[in-house]
């Protein structure tokens, strides 16, 4: 008897945690509606009366404040994401007030919000802290996975599920209380198993609620059935069955499998002139990382720190290094190199999105550790995975990348994300891209692509180098219009790749090549010398 009561005693607080969570969610939904309503009315417009939940509110916001940097849009997303940071034991009213203080950047009616907050049930300020939860491995990016999957609805649905589950186990326990003791030993053993499961779920209700994620198995260290589905049968038929195979060239990469592919890569990041004339001088905010893997595979990453962010040089350094580790792990776990396969377009889009979210989450942890705002570490990121099969790309922000195909034609790999003003862009620390389907200047953020063709050279650069190496556009005087372009300039890249190949033939070491490369990027042309922005330039060419 007593053991049942004991279990109830433990389970109830967990349920009350989820009830408190539900109350907070509901209060925030009302608060968000009031915030946006106040803003709209203040600007002399009308607020549709039928908006009564977060889903309709979010649709309204997307329609009315489409701009990615709009404060209403940003504030709404920031508040919604921060709900999940609620910890058992925190006072709901204090928690909500801290969120409002932190994220609302425009004027609002305090009284109205106070009213809503006052109505939150005080609830059981539970004594169960997170640490007591059952040992479920920390899945960091699930926070973003959770919020990205249609934040307006899935939160509600998933919480319902958990609450039901909790309620069921309580009910079953209550029923079993009444069973007579003349049960057989087998049945009482089963009861114990069931009780154990019930306790497990009850104790970890808060954690499960935050950690439910079936997709994460793709990049976790333990192999499981989901991973199998991703790798085996799908990918091996990818070229034959997928519709894209009809359009793109067939994988000639198979011819590469027997050749020994060798990449020669020159890479550097140099500080821009403008950083040197300020007081005090600003460090180079560009960073990059390159790693060759086996069989002609490898990863190249370029990160450009935000000029206005005081620690963005640390942010860009962190992201470029962590990116290499993370994508190396993805390649290994999916066994692409050994099996010589590429993911499908959808698979790559999913994988790269998760990876970028994880990198962003880790950067946030770093900012907490350093006790700074994560925006102080803001930077862009371009990731290129190169191989005999072709190239995988994903990026957030500006900068450029290009490749040379078998016909010796240079083509672009990415379309930079640009804002209204010529030097505006989006960063990995920005909130808007966490909502799926976000676009900037007509380009998805993040933008992920798979190029399934043999390449003979590629390049990745930050925007400080773009006007020197890419054709960016021209002014059509007849039409009185500026026509945008995104073409790697062959007269820039061809001489450089030839020199690279030659240097390798002459037996120059990687260090010697990089030193000459640094010199070139610093002052190789008059324009490069006078370039005010930081410059990152990575150039890779195949030698056999």
């Amino acid at each position: 008897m007593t053991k049942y009561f004991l279990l109830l005693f433990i389970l109830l607080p967990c349920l009350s945690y989820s009830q408190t969570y539900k109350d907070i969610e509901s209060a925030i939904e009302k608060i968000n509606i009031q915030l946006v309503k106040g803003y709209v009315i203040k600007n002399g417009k009308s607020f549709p009366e039928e908006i009564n939940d977060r889903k309709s509110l979010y649709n309204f916001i997307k329609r009315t404040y489409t701009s990615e940097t709009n404060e209403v849009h940003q504030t709404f997303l920031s508040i919604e994401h921060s709900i999940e940071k609620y910890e058992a034991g925190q006072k709901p009213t204090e928690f909500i007030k801290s969120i409002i203080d932190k994220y609302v950047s425009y004027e609002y009616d305090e009284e109205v919000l106070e009213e809503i907050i006052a109505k939150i049930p005080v609830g059981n300020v539970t004594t169960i802290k997170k640490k007591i939860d059952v040992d479920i491995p920390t899945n960091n990016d699930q926070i973003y996975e959770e919020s990205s999957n249609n934040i307006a609805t899935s939160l509600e649905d998933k919480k319902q599920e958990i609450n039901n589950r909790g309620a069921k186990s309580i009910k079953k326990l209550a029923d079993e209380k009444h069973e007579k003791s003349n049960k057989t030993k087998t049945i009482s053993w089963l009861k114990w198993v069931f009780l154990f499961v019930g306790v497990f779920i009850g104790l970890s209700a808060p954690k499960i609620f935050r950690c439910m994620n079936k997709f994460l198995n793709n990049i976790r260290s333990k192999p499981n059935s989901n991973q199998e589905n991703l790798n085996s049968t799908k990918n091996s038929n990818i070229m034959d069955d997928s519709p894209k195979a009809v359009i793109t060239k067939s994988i000639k990469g198979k011819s590469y499998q027997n050749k020994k592919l060798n990449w020669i890569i020159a890479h550097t990041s140099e500080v821009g002139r403008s950083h040197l004339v300020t007081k005090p001088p600003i460090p180079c905010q560009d960073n990059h990382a390159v790693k060759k893997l086996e069989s002609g595979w490898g990863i190249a990453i370029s990160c450009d720190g935000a000029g206005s962010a005081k620690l963005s040089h640390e942010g860009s350094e962190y992201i470029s290094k962590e990116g290499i580790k993370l994508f190396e792990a993805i390649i290994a776990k999916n066994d692409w190199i050994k099996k010589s396969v590429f993911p499908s377009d959808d698979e790559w889009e999913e994988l790269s999105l998760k990876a970028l979210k994880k990198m962003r989450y880790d950067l946030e942890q770093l900012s907490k550790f350093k006790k700074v705002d994560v925006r102080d570490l803001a930077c862009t990121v371009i990731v290129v995975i190169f191989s005999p099969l072709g190239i995988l790309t994903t990026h957030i922000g500006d900068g450029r990348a290009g490749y040379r195909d078998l016909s010796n034609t240079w083509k672009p790999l990415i379309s930079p994300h640009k804002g209204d003003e010529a030097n505006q862009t989006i960063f990995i620390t920005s909130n808007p891209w966490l909502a799926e389907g976000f676009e900037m200047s007509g380009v998805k953020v993040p933008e992920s692509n798979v190029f399934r063709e043999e390449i003979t050279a590629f390049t990745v650069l930050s925007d400080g180098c773009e006007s020197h190496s890419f054709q960016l556009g021209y002014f059509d005087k007849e039409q009185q219009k500026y026509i945008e372009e995104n073409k790697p300039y062959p007269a820039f890249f061809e001489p450089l790749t030839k020199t690279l190949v030659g240097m390798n033939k002459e037996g120059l070491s990687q260090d010697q090549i990089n030193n000459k490369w640094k010199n070139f990027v610093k002052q190789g042309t008059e324009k490069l010398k006078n370039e005010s922005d930081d410059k990152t330039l990575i150039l890779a060419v195949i030698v056999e």
Partner: protein
Amino acid sequence: MAHNDFSAESPENFEQKSICCFVVDVSGSMGGSPIDELNKGLQEFHYEISKDSTTANRLEIAVVEFGSNVDTVAEPSLVENLTMPNLTTKGSTKLVDGVIEAIDLVESRKAWYKQTGQPYLRPWVILITDGAPDPDQDVNGLASRIENDTKDKRYVFLPIGVQGADMNILNTIAGYNQDNDRNWKKMQAMKLQGLKFADFFKWVSASMSIVAGSKDGDKVDLPDPSSWMGGFTI
């Protein structure tokens, strides 16, 4: 070249544009050496910009003068198409009207960039005055407009006081800038040391090329102005 060094050719790219509008006080009090020095300074500025081929292709310049009337004496154009006007003094100080004309000018130029799809950087409006505005000028109205516009990141506004200028008025209408902690702070108006227009315009031309380098522009990292600026700190 031998395989000893890297070399390459760069494409001719259409430079992203930026408009800088000077709004200049030509009231009677500027007569004599002030206006002479100012004219010399403007010519210097024109020369400095023309020398730097990158900035010469990026920077559009306009000049609005105000005395008893407001006049746009140079429409927005690249240096190669611009002859710096020679300013002469006349009348009183319609400062607010002058600044408003300059703001409208840069806003419509920006709209033209947008309409033709040209990439552009944030415009600058630089006010140069030596006195106090006429009593009928709505200084507070201008101050709140500039506060809203600079917080909206529409343009950068720099008020410069020449000797004898009423710095209080200039501080009232100064624009807002975000500091490293993302707090909005009102900028301090800057005072010219004596009549060091030449140094001032050198600094402006250096700043123009740096504006192009700053990412997302909400913090303007200006070069050291101590060669021409006296008394106040930025």
